[in-house]
């Protein structure tokens, strides 16, 4: 395993490159993924609004397709192509745009295997940016993974680091079911150790990011690094937290979470998604239902308020769960008494 530091953006680009080299049925579709239909060729290829697919248009002629600005059209086309033998990776740009193509995802892609008695598979991956922090306002900043987690038949992946991004994207592309792959737009320049070789991370296997004894902190996507910040601060107060990154929210590795709660007896779940019916509420409910006897304190959830993501920078900063919010929640469950 030869590793070096690359960014989250580069890790995603490398997974796409290696999967396209490995399997000629892998294609890319989306708005501006090549550089825009009016571009003057390879030199102009920007590779998506934030440059994630840069360079692929030239490397894989005919396999990186710029589409019209019609999500209902090209997401439907990607789903259809998947049922006929291709492995399309469709880029939805912002997950907030899923509304206009939800039928293709929710009622078609997610249901084919079931409706056709296992005779049809739909190996499509839909990549999309999510999350607040880039001053992109309420219509481009949501963390909508709970919406897709709700739908049986979809796999939902939320990578928290460059290593996770590369291995989970390779797994998504090789998987025979539709996968919604969530990339946090504020993480593209985050760097980390990533093997040069191709590898896959299995779905439904949580990562224990840090071992600890006092409180279990489950964090999703970008919140994992925020929880790590909190861990350093809590260390100073003599509280050791165990951080668990589920990596995929559907399927969810509940066993690793339960095993940790059995040890610590205390749970905080950190989720950037709106607080009602999000992953934090789901995990909390399942832990309380399965491990009530292990809990020494109520479960705490750290999520933003139930409002659209504010455009005003000062308010957006307040909206996103912070390390201090996690520290406060951990202290609350540590000090809790009847």
């Amino acid at each position, binding site marked *: *395993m*030869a*590793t070096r530091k690359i960014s989250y953006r580069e890790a995603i680009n490398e997974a796409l490159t290696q999967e396209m080299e490995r399997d000629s049925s892998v294609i890319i579709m989306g708005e501006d993924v090549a550089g825009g239909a009016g571009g003057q060729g390879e030199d102009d290829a920007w590779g998506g609004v934030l440059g994630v697919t840069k360079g692929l248009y030239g490397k894989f002629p005919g396999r990186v397709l710029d589409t019209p600005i019609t999500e209902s059209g090209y997401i439907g086309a990607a789903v259809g192509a998947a049922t006929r033998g291709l492995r399309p990776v469709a880029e939805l740009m912002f997950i907030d745009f899923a509304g206009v193509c939800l039928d293709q995802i929710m009622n078609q892609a997610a249901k084919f295997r079931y409706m056709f008695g296992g005779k049809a598979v739909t190996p499509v991956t839909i990549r999309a940016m999510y999350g607040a922090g880039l001053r992109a306002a309420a219509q481009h900043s949501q963390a909508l993974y709970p919406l897709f987690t709700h739908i049986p038949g979809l796999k939902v992946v939320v990578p928290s680091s460059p*290593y996770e991004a590369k*291995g989970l994207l390779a797994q998504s592309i090789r998987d025979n079911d539709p996968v919604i792959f969530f990339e946090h737009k504020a993480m593209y320049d985050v760097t980390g*150790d990533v*093997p040069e*070789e*191709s*590898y*896959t*991370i*299995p779905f439904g*296997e949580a*990562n*224990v990011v*840090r*071992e600890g004894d006092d409180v279990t902190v489950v964090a999703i996507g970008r919140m994992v690094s925020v929880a790590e910040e909190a861990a350093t601060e809590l260390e100073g107060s003599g509280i050791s937290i165990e951080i668990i990154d589920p990596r995929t929210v559907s399927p969810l590795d509940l*066993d*690793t979470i339960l*095993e940790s709660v059995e040890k610590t007896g205390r749970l905080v779940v950190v989720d950037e998604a709106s607080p009602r019916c999000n992953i934090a509420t789901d995990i909390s409910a399942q832990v309380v239902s399965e491990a009530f006897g292990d809990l020494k304190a109520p479960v705490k959830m750290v999520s933003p308020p139930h409002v659209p993501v504010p455009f005003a920078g000062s308010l957006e900063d307040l909206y996103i769960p912070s390390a201090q919010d996690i520290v406060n929640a951990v202290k609350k469950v540590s000090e809790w008494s009847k």
Partner: protein
Amino acid sequence: MTNSRIQRVTMPKWGLSMQSGKVTEWLVSEGDELREGQDVAEIDTDKIAAALESKWSGVVRALVVEVNADVPVGGTIVVVASAEVPQDEIDAVVAEAKEQLASGAIEDEVGPKVVEVDIDGRSISYAVLGDTESEATPVVFVHGYGGDKNSWLFVQEPISADRATYALDLLGHGASSKDVGDGSVTTLASSLVGFVNELGLPRVHLVGHSMGGAVATVAAADPAAAGKVASLTLISPIGYGPDVNAGYIRGFAEAETRRELKPHLQQLFTDQGLVNRQLIDDLLKYKRLDGVDAALASIVAALLDGESSSVDVTAEQASFGGNTVAVWGAEDKVVPASNAGSLQGRATVHTVDGAGHMAHLEQPQAVIAAIKEAIGAT
């Protein structure tokens, strides 16, 4: 500013990925008389905790860093000098060291260099440490099944003090090619011989652990390496008896998750605390690489015959005829010390207490001593 009267004990580099470590406990105090080889501090890295030995003799004049502070590899942690050196000179060295730590201007040049070489169309990755121009016969380290060049972290550095050392990744392992052919010990041994020849090493001492012990033995007897292998040091080698923990070998290959892998890894050590999150995580990262599943499956098929080892290298060891020293952890649960019988009369066998299958990690001093015995160094 170099001053040979004043020596520095620095943060060691234990493993290729180690960038910093912490002193968790001092084992000496300022003013203590220190001899070379004496433990000075307990060091904790992300991966492993162990005692650091001093390379110097003299008086401990200053403990430079705080307990539990993060210190980059190469950073000065202790200043050693004779009692005659005036205090103001010591103070100047300490001030310089602290300034260096504060500014982060420490160059990580103490660790091994990683290089790749092509052997018959397959790449072999290796870590080289020590003076490659040295006249002394170099040492080549061969890890075991599922291991890699990093497993020699406590052993390679001390052995490299007076010679070049090479720790390679066998085919199917680490950063080397994942194409293992039939996965047999013979195939792995011929790539080891190819490695020695490709590097143009006229003569080498081989050190092999577990499966690597069998690989080294077969390489030593290979006509293509005739006269090139000076000695063998074998740590819990397979191939010297039928007793092997087949459940471990299959379980390691098949485990896909942390929870599945952990109980298998715990069989490797006497100290279960060594199976920490980082070790499991590193091994899972290796096992997830494309091609590793198939490589391990081929190797397992070649290693096992039902519940026994199907590898026998005793004939090769006999035909080698050179100096052979073996080290066995008394509590080895993977390749038990009961196998050592067939080496009696043909090799020196040291059974080491407080070690399981990984004596080079749990009791590195015993392994270093055995290597020195095999290579005839003092």
